[in-house]
């Protein structure tokens, strides 16, 4: 109790000291793994796929409008999710990439989504593209859309969804990510409703994930959480997935994007 009072009184410096004292036992590991990460290999392949002509229209994605206008990739990831007038809805980066595959390349939704999530032996097109696009936002401040009514709706829905008890085993996102200092086995669980926990996390997704030996996207992360919550499968690019992503990204806003990251 006394430390809490002191921390408030002393402000930043002590707060920093407290954070250091509570540093994860895996901090050194995570730092070294991030320094020696193969993540850039995925950005390289993603850039090739971005420029590759394919689909019925034999077009590349280079004219894809990720929110800054056609063909502007620098800094775009850090401003997503946001409202897109041309489709009158909120989209995160993967939903928008899917949209561009369909509109620019003329591919069907089925074709473009045949394999949204890959594996180590064969990463997916979406994973490579996400790596490239995210890498182009390194150093940019995260500022998802928050002004359009639909963006605010999306945030509000995401926040509600975060606390919905559901699935065969009655979990909500908050069951695991709602309380400080909790673990699943040895995995430390960030309290994602808090900016200080959401920022470092959202600033490093998508990411090379050591457990999968490959690159993974945010939609995969959410999909995989629902799998472990024993629900049916959320639809790729659905309002539910976009809203959860919006809620987490808005909670993390202001962070400097430093991904694509490297995770356990």
């Amino acid at each position, binding site marked *: 109790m006394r430390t809490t009072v002191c921390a408030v009184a002393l402000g930043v410096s002590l707060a920093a000291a407290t954070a250091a004292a509570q540093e994860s036992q895996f901090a050194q590991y995570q730092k070294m793994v991030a320094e*020696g*990460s*193969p993540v*850039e*290999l995925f950005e*390289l*392949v993603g850039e090739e796929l971005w420029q590759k002509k394919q689909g019925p229209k034999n077009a590349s994605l280079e004219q894809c409008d990720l929110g800054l206008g056609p063909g502007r990739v620098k800094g775009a990831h850090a401003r997503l999710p946001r409202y897109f007038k041309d489709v009158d809805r909120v989209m995160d980066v993967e939903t928008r990439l899917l949209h561009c595959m369909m509109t620019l390349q003329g591919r069907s939704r089925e074709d473009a989504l045949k394999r949204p999530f890959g594996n*180590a*032996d064969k990463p997916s097109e979406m994973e490579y593209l996400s790596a490239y696009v995210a890498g182009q936002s390194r150093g940019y401040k995260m500022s998802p859309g928050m002004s359009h009514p639909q963006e605010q709706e999306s945030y509000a829905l995401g926040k509600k969804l975060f606390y919905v008890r559901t699935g065969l085993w009655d979990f909500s996102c908050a069951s695991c990510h709602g309380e400080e200092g909790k673990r699943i086995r040895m995995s430390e669980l960030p309290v994602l409703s808090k900016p200080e926990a959401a920022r470092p996390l959202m600033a490093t997704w998508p990411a090379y994930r050591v457990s999968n*030996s490959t690159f993974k996207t945010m939609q995969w992360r959410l999909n995989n959480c629902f799998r472990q919550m024993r629900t049916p499968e959320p639809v790729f690019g659905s309002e539910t997935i976009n809203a959860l992503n919006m809620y987490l990204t808005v909670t993390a806003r202001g962070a400097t994007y430093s991904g694509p990251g490297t995770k356990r």
Partner: protein
Amino acid sequence: MAGPMKMRATLASGYTDVRVLMSHPMETGQRKGPDGKMIPLHFIQNLTVKVNGKTVVEGQISQAVSRNPVFSFRLKGGAKGDKIEVSWLDNKGETNRTESAVA
């Protein structure tokens, strides 16, 4: 076909830092594929670092090196523009190489 390699060679204080990323499955021969069959051993065995055509590091490695290997080496001194080349050879005889100038 081999996936991409990426290298960065940068001048540090008194040495050149070489960081190289390689796409490779580094299969241990002890993992089952989706078809239930064991995936055979497939891993990089040799790697070579050259500066301006002269070999400076020769590495022999095993399947215990992680998938998509990342290595760092340090070269004495060095100057901007020095040509660094890294190549590898795996147990199936596949090879790849990349080169870049010290920045």
